[in-house]
């Protein structure tokens, strides 16, 4: 294990790792290359190939040109929809989760363990159990087929994760710190603002990345509760595939896929450490 020389076994290890890496990268490389090839070029050969000349026009078409259903505005309105759902829902669920996580771990109140236990059941309850009730709730409060309806869903459902993340982080803060502050007369919000929040940067980053990635990538609620121009980008991609099924435009579609995946990919590249921490924190519930 501690051998750093280039024995045959080491070469084999590097070879295998490189092959694995190539396999994991291949789909991304193929799509990036395709996004730079013309539809005709792809149609003559296969999806897998080198661009003969760079067709940057695919990106312009994907962003604001091609048609989904009757609307020909490209992927831009749907990207905007996704942003208008993901950003508020991420902020709300993270802030509320931080306060609630602090309340159940450090402030303590009667019934805190019970309510915390119930809230974390949300990690396991399948979305299919909530589809019909959400349909009715959204219709009754007039938010069906609106972006705010999706914000509401993702905020409330996201709480299960954000409360869990924050609670597990705050539980390690010494209780004496809180007790001393309370004796000094500091209240709930003051302690949160002055003591908890300044200590929270790492867990808030983890939570924000987790929530953003999940809400941006979510599909089922988007496709169930919104139609047409109100849909998030995941639902629009599926609608696009269906719309161009007869005359595929793989170059433009590839560009659309890249654009749709870019926000979460960039977040992953720049916040990878926190992304992985969220993964493991979510797993070891």
């Amino acid at each position: 294990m501690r051998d750093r020389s280039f024995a045959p076994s080491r070469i084999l290890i590097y070879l295998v790792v490189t092959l694995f890496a190539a396999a994991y990268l291949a789909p991304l490389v193929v799509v990036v290359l395709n996004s730079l090839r013309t539809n005709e070029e792809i149609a003559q050969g296969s999806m897998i190939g080198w661009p003969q000349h760079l067709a940057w026009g695919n990106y312009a078409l994907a962003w604001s040109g091609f048609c989904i259903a009757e609307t020909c505005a490209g992927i831009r309105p749907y990207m905007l929809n996704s942003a208008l759902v993901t950003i508020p829902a991420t902020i709300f669920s993270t802030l509320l989760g931080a306060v609630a996580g602090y309340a159940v771990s450090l402030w303590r109140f009667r019934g805190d363990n019970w309510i915390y236990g119930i809230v974390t059941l949300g990690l396991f309850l399948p979305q299919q159990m909530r589809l019909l009730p959400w349909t009715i709730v959204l219709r009754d409060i007039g938010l069906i087929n609106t972006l705010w309806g999706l914000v509401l869903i993702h905020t409330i459902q996201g709480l299960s994760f954000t409360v869990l993340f924050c609670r597990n982080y705050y539980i390690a803060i010494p209780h004496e710190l809180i007790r001393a502050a309370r004796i000094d007369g500091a209240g709930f919000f003051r302690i949160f603002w002055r003591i908890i929040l300044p200590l929270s940067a790492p867990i808030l980053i983890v939570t924000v990345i987790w929530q953003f990635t999940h809400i941006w990538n979510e599909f089922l609620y988007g496709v169930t509760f919104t139609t047409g121009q109100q849909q998030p980008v995941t639902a629009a991609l599926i609608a696009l595939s269906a719309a161009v099924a007869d005359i595929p435009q793989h170059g433009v579609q590839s560009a659309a896929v890249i654009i749709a995946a870019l926000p979460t990919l960039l977040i992953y590249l720049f916040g990878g450490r926190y992304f992985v921490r969220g993964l493991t924190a979510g797993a070891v519930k």
Partner: protein
Amino acid sequence: MSNVVSTAARPATSEMVRRLPEYLMIWVPLLLSAAHLISFSIWTIWISFTPSTLIPVSGWVGLRNYNAVLASRNWQIAFDNLLLFGIAFVLLSLITGLALAILLDQRIRGENVLRTIFLYPLAVSFVVTGTVWSWLLNPGIGIEKLIHDLGWSSFHFDWLVNRDMAIWTIVIAAIWQSSGFAMALFLAGLRSVDTDIIRAAQIDGAGPIRTYVRVILPTLWPITITVVVVQLQFAISAFDLVRALTNGGPGIATQLPALVVYDLMFQRSQLGRGAAAAVLMLLILLAVLLPYAAWRYVQRRQATHA
């Protein structure tokens, strides 16, 4: 705070009023979350026992919806597919994840870059993964076409449009997407092995491979169980990936429970049956999660008693 001199009851009420924002801030989000989980579950379970079709109606039909769902070809195929997909996907992604973790644990150069490569699919949506793999696996434009163009014209790789093999395309895409998760947990496990045990094994004369197989790998089994449960949870509720990759086809060859639920609820307007299918999904999930919860409980007790 200022008027301390008052009757005995006044401070209590004003204290309540003063702390109202605090109570609201603590209770409203938690109660909304808890209430929606409980009431939504109960409501969906209730609907599964009613004759609801286009709209929810009251009434009691006993297990009729369940019998109808269980007797439908759609569900039977979905359930068989779930068994195959669940087992194949979980096993293969465990093996892949463990292999990657072991390889990365060999003090190789560029570990950070490699880890980034193996984990990036997790940042991408299942819709994107499904769409991309539907191109790669499409015999007309994907890998098969490429190999044909390269001159090997008898090459065959048509699983996407082959009824018997189509479910394996979902296995492939799912492994590509989430074996990095298994790798991340295994790698963390490998790195947290007590160095004293390793040293003790080496003093006992065990070589590197022997130490690895006999001493390090056995410590990973609690992580293995966690990975299996998380991956099974994904497999049971898989929807987006299938929707984007095969949409349940060819025919209904790659149907999965989540697609059946969606189909019954929103395409056939069979709310009662859709709810019954959703409850069946929940039961399948509980069959995985309850033993896991029991195991976790025993583990914790042992840890506190030790």
